[in-house]
């Protein structure tokens, strides 16, 4: 198993890229490190959408799990006083897995636009509940205190940045192993022909349910990381439908080609937004939207497909 992981070229490349990022973090200005943390966190949620997209499914409502993960971090602090990084991540993932598993029984019966919109509907319900409930912070949400590491509360953001990188690397490796497995390879097969999969003796509903829970777990962990990076959770920045929309946006921008693509795409998105905002504070959406249009027209495989023009990256796909 370990050998299979270490010999996988995508895994090696991802590890190398993230290590380089961690090293760079030591020298970069704080706002750049912040942006990269946001990008990495969002990238983990986009990785979850990639798992669905490979099977021809899309969710317009993964802000639901992103928000659940973020609120798991905030409420576990508020109610239980938790501030430890590992515990916060675990809480975020656990809450999302439980919710994804339960809703999965409904979602697994739908496809296409209904599948995509159902998650959105659930995320709107959560948004409504959060906004209306004083005990859950209402519209203001909660601030999230500094994250600790086994009791240690380090200065600055470097340690949190490195920890987030480590989690993203672990998630990317797990997803890569999953995509290489029989279950993961069922992606194209399910997209191509559900009837055949059934007649091979396997339940398509179950396969989709598993994929949905995996994607929920990733979005939950992502929300947890975002809460820690931002130091704040509130319904508008964690659950609102624009959060879900951004995830879909980045998924398409990044392309489905590799587990590394979501992180690259999300980091680029973060900087694109920052610069667009600086250039045109009132029309930054125009710049971001225009960029996506250009990508859809000229790079239908997303930013990753640009890298795949280089033979090394192209070969990864068949590794």
């Amino acid at each position, binding site marked *: 198993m370990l050998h299979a992981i270490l010999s996988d070229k995508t895994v090696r490349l991802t590890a190398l890229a993230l290590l380089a990022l961690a090293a760079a973090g030591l020298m970069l200005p704080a706002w750049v490190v912040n942006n990269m943390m946001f990008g990495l966190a969002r990238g983990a949620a986009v990785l979850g959408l990639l798992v669905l997209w490979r099977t021809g499914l899309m969710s317009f409502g993964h802000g639901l799990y992103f928000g659940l993960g973020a609120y798991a971090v905030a409420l576990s602090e508020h109610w239980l006083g938790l501030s430890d990084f590992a515990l916060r991540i675990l809480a975020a993932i656990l809450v999302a897995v439980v919710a994804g598993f339960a809703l999965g029984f409904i979602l697994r019966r739908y496809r296409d636009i209904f599948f995509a919109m159902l998650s959105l509907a659930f995320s709107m319900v959560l948004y409504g509940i959060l906004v209306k409930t004083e005990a859950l912070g209402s519209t203001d949400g909660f601030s999230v205190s500094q994250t600790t590491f086994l009791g240690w509360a380090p200065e600055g953001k470097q340690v949190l940045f490195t920890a987030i990188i480590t989690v993203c690397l672990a998630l990317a490796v797990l997803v890569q192993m999953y995509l290489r497995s029989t279950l993961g390879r069922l992606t194209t097969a399910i997209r191509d022909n559900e009837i055949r999969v059934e007649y091979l003796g*396997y339940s398509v509903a179950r396969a989709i349910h598993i994929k949905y829970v995996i994607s929920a777990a990733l979005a939950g962990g992502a929300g947890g990381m975002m809460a820690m990076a931002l130091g704040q959770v509130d319904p508008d920045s964690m659950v609102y439908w624009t959060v879900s929309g951004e995830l879909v946006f980045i998924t398409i921008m990044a392309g489905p080609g590799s587990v590394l693509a979501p992180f690259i795409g999300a980091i680029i998105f973060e900087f694109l937004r920052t610069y667009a905002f600086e250039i045109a504070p009132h029309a930054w959406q125009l710049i971001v939207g225009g960029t996506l249009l250009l990508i859809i027209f000229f790079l239908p495989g997303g930013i990753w497909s640009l890298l795949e023009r280089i033979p090394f990256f192209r070969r990864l796909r068949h590794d």
Partner: protein
Amino acid sequence: MTDVPILSVKDLQKSFGAVTAAKDINVDIPAGQVVGVIGANGAGKTTFVNMVTGYLKPSGGTIRFRGRDITGIAPRLAVHQGLTRSFQVSQVFMTLSVRQNLLSALALARRKGGALLRPIAGPELLAECDAIMARYGLTDVAEHEASALSQGSRKLLDIAMAVVSGPRMLLLDEPTSGVAAEEKFAIMDTVMSALKASGTTVLFIEHDMEIVERYVDRVLAFFSGEVICDAPPARALIDPKVRELVIGDTRAPTAPTAATGQAEAAYA
């Protein structure tokens, strides 16, 4: 052959609104038999296969397979019992290569415990895949995408994928439809010899009477959702009702092999 039939269908009914697609179908099939199902377009042949393999729920009646009631169970559970099928319109993974199609099928059929979480292409699976491609004449097109295959090869792939689960009984819905006339016998020879070797019970739907005559032990003739004749081919193909309602030829047969040469008429 054992006394208990491998498949036993009692009083099977199915209606779609006003259309009766199956009416009082009663059939027992002993293990190892090769059964040919004939009937004009819309006679209810596919509906029968769909009900037996769990794709459609019958409106009435029971289906027993190896002594167990399997009426209305999900297709994948029928597959677990050893009952599977191929399709009138090939159901393969169109964007995957022939090899990937078979590997997916093999991986799903052989999954036990954590097998679904291991990489798909272990050496044993690859070897087994090669053997199947050789047996079904697919070696030359191994790397071709399924969407680029000829009708004949796609049908063979469809059948090969059904067979990897090691079924005890296989239902083939028009294995040679859409296939060039000169390819038909080659395909049937390939399929039937592979299935004979594994002792699989076979039921296939076929419009070409030459093929029916050549390969089956028994004919079931469908008309308007009913079985109007259940007999060995030598008798069934000269039965006046079958000739009129299925083969579409009212002339008196001149010899027991009269169906030969009627293939084109029957296929229309």
